[in-house]
């Protein structure tokens, strides 16, 4: 019910009371209230002018001050409430103020944005009369839109990654490299990424170079590295993801030399290399290094860099899956089963699995495989992030926006995959030493 409605009901009751009690006074009183309402209604004609000022470049989740210049164009005192019409995820304060007739004032309040490029409209201003009976909303016109670019907040990302990733990394590290015991295994030279607290200072003084203690680790089961060497991994001329993945595989093989380690390499045609986890030690590492000599790249797989696709031309995952079904089987394939399924069918019943794969090429298939495998295996998925491998020297604004959109899509996918198995998005600098250094 409205406040004015209460007063009108009140008028009606007084009329009824006057009639029933044969008393003219309530009728006179209610007439006076009606006159009062007529006065208020006729006098209420607010007019407001507003203009917002906000910085063009903002940071994600960082409160930003916005200034709103307001002018009361009528000669009545108005109570104003300011409501922001912001994109989803944004937060804003809802300031309120009183503005005298003809008064002009600047209001400052805070908005908390989320990442992306948005067009912000001016806020809606609700002007209320001083008796709290009537109001009028002043909606922003369509020309009032101001474009803002909200960039990721590096501090926040750092904090989040500290909180979430460290835990995940530590868990993955222990799974992969075993839980470190207090029993000393050997001494060796310091390598970047080693912890400072493991330096043996006596041996360091004696030998004149940094020496670290290596402790025995408890590991269980075989470890298999499943490496994707498909077309998507080979894209890029100066630096392809496969180069990075190969280096990472070698580093992992060396780090895991004390476990029985196997390797499966597959591409778009099927399994290309398979090295069973039979033995431990450096001999096995050498074998794996030999297997990683992937050889000449088939011409059909030769990576090339496409210019940025036009908006709307880029196929979605569903569309790609559909085209994959209707197109003839890729020339050269040995069977109708996909390479990934072939690769995982070669795995033993139980093992630690380390997938190094592109997650965007055959996402649905990868998810299905991971869902099936996680019942029997412990799995970690390492995925080189193509955005971090983008090798343009000075990307223009359009390219940056495109890359950012892809990055956001990928974030969603990573989140989804993380719900299935621990997934790590890797860039150039995330080789083993860095990873170990980060969470060791």
């Amino acid at each position, binding site marked *: 019910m409205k406040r004015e409605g209460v007063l009108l009901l009140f008028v009606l009751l007084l009329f009824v009371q006057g009639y029933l009690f044969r008393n*003219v006074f309530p*009728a006179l009183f209610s007439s006076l209230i009606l006159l009062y309402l007529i006065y208020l209604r*006729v006098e209420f004609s607010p007019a407001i002018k507003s203009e917002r000022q906000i910085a063009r470049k903002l940071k994600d989740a960082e409160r930003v001050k916005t200034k709103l210049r307001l002018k009361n164009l009528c000669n009545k005192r108005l109570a104003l409430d300011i409501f922001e019409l912001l994109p989803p995820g944004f937060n804003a304060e809802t300031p309120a103020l009183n503005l005298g007739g003809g008064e002009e004032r600047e209001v400052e309040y805070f908005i908390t944005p989320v990442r992306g490029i948005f067009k912000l409209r001016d806020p809606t201003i609700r002007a209320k009369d001083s008796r709290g009976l009537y109001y009028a909303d002043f909606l922003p016109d369509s020309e009032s839109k101001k474009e803002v670019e909200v960039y990721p907040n590096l501090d926040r990302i750092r904090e989040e990654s500290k909180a979430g990733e460290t835990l995940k990394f530590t868990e993955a590290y222990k799974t992969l490299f075993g839980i470190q015991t207090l029993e000393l295994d050997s001494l060796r030279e310091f390598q970047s990424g080693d912890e400072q607290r493991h330096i043996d200072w006596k041996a360091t003084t004696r030998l004149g170079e940094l020496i670290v203690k290596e402790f025995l680790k408890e590991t269980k089961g075989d470890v298999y590295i499943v490496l994707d060497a498909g077309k998507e991994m080979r894209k890029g001329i100066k630096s392809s993801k496969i180069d990075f993945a190969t280096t990472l595989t070698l580093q992992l093989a060396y780090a895991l030399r004390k476990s029985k380690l196997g390797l499966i390499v597959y591409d778009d045609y099927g399994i290309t290399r398979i090295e069973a986890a039979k033995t431990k030690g450096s001999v096995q590492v050498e074998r794996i290094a030999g297997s990683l000599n992937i050889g000449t790249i088939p011409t059909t797989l030769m990576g090339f860099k496409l210019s940025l696709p036009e908006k709307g031309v880029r196929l979605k995952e569903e569309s790609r899956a559909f085209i994959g079904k209707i197109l003839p089987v890729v020339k050269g394939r040995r069977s109708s089963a996909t390479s990934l399924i072939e690769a995982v069918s070669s795995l033993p019943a139980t093992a630690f699995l380390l997938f190094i794969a592109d997650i965007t090429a055959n996402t649905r298939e990868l998810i299905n495989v991971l869902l099936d495998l996680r019942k029997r295996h412990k799995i970690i998925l390492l995925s080189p992030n193509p955005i971090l491998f983008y090798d343009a020297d000075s990307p223009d604004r359009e390219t940056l926006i495109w890359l950012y959109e892809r990055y956001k899509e990928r974030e969603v996918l990573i989140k989804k995959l993380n719900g299935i198995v621990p997934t790590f998005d890797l860039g150039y600098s995330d080789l083993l030493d860095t990873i170990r250094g980060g969470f060791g």
Partner: protein
Amino acid sequence: MIMIAIAVIAAAMGGLIAGLMIPLLFLPFLFIAKVKNKKDIFLLLFLVYALAIGYEFEIANIYGADLPLVLCVVMPQLLLLDSGLKDEHPIFAKPKIFFVIIISAFVFGWFVNEVFVGAVLIALAFEFSSENARRGIFAAVISLALLISALALAQGVLNLEGGAATQVVFISAFSTLTALLFFRTSIDRQEFGDWITNKSQKR
């Protein structure tokens, strides 16, 4: 809070001049509701208060009524309603001298009703003076003039012994029809009871 204080004192004195006790019972609660800035509670209390006055103060025939006495009761109610609903204007916080003068006039009005009515009218004029009202005042004055003219014209028909009900129907019908002329325009109206969800009405 000066204006509500003046309105409460005026309503109490107006009531006492007419020999009413009901205002003394309700006015403290109305004052507290205003001080606590609870407009909706104030409205509800005012509704009950007005019905109670209507029950206690009786006019059997408008043409035979003591006009100054009627105005002594009615006019402070308008001042009370407006000062209860209106957000206090800082201008009234300063002229304390105005408060002293107007209260003195009220006291004097105890003996001369016309002085009391005049003092209330001055207080009303002071209350509305800050609004630079033009059209609203004009509309209200025209409506009032029409009602008075209609009552004067229909005196021959309405001024009868025991004709109070007919007079009430006439006043009601005429006031309602006049109001309808101004209620045609659509205005967004504020909700009653938003204090339940919106605790802070202070700004």
